[in-house]
């Protein structure tokens, strides 16, 4: 599997969840683990460009696919991804635990709907839980990300993987 553009081996243990593989084996701890049954959205990553819950997939299932985690959106020292920049500008986070999941969901949302309606934004973030900011500033951040996003939206070095429609 390719993780953030780098070829990585699949784990030997077939029981390992993708979320745990990313965190424990690959050290990519930006993907957070909250509920572990697909409700909170913290572990959202992109699989072939489309957001999915990494706690609801076995790591071996990602073999042959491209994954993007929060670490893959912008290289160290490079400009932030437009969605990250928008969350920063709009103070769309407080404790930050849910933020990587929100950012990955919003990247997916804007790939699917480059100019989402208010309803599409609300639906797009309704699968992620935030327990401290409330959602007003997160909604504002999605609008801001829309303004900041050159189209098509893409992460650094991810090629066509982030442009949506790459779903298997």
């Amino acid at each position: 599997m390719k993780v953030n553009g780098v070829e990585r081996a699949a784990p030997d243990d077939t029981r390992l969840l993708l979320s745990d593989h990313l965190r424990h084996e690959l050290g990519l701890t930006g993907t957070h683990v909250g509920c572990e049954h697909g409700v909170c959205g913290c572990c959202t990553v992109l699989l072939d460009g489309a957001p999915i819950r990494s706690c609801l997939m076995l790591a071996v299932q990602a073999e042959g696919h491209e994954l993007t985690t929060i670490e893959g959106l912008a290289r160290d020292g490079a400009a932030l991804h437009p969605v990250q920049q928008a969350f920063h500008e709009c103070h769309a986070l407080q404790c930050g635990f849910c933020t990587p999941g929100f950012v990955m969901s919003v990247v997916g949302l804007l790939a699917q709907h480059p100019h989402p309606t208010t309803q599409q934004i609300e639906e797009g973030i309704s699968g992620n839980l935030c327990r401290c900011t409330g959602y007003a500033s997160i909604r504002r951040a999605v609008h801001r990300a829309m303004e900041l996003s050159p189209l098509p939206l893409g992460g650094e070095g991810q090629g066509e993987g982030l442009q949506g429609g790459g779903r298997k």
Partner: protein
Amino acid sequence: MKPPPFTYHAPGSVDEACTLLGTLEDAKVLAGGQSLIPLLNFRLARPQHLIDINRIAGLDRIYERDGGVAVQALVRQATVEDSDVVARVCPLLTDAIHLVAHRVIRNRGTVCGSIAHADPASELPAVLLALGGSVVAKSTRGERVIGAGALFAGVFETTLAPDEILVEAWFPSSSKPCSVIEESRRHGDFALAGVVRAGDRLALFGVAPTPVLADRLDPTRGLEPSGDLEASADFRLHLIRALTAQAFAA
């Protein structure tokens, strides 16, 4: 490690998957995993074998047949949501998919998986039942078609045999008014109660062990829904009456 121990199989063809299902004891088919993996993570399900069908090629088609639309086992719900064919042939299915969880879940979850999982509060089994659709089940013994009315047997229970794979669901087209309406606490949650109208037919979900057909003039007859923290039994019955009236008001 969250899931309980299992042996993982990733067959490359439907025949190979059928052989595995026919020979292994206590095997479960893994498609989108959006229901099965949570059950594994909670250790509510402990199958000895997981048969991951995601590597099977040619099982991800949506196509028209027999005056309806067929959705194969590996078609993701999001693909159905975006499908022009589905929107044209069976717009009720498109409407229903919007109510299934969230887009991030639908990117992975499958239509056939939802039906085989047979959650009583799930939309898609009720849509299949209201439309009078069917599924195609395959095993080493052959292939058979199961009508929606004969498919749902109980809570999370279907009449699929342990060695059968649900390879396709077929949703007939309807020229009559169709709608799906549900009440849930938040968008994407499981419904407290819901109704599907397909012409004169009415199917209910969330109020019985399986989706059930009902009489539009007396939709709650014979129903004994359970009450919980989210909604009392009486409130669920009230919802069914209100949602039915809404569905047939147009």
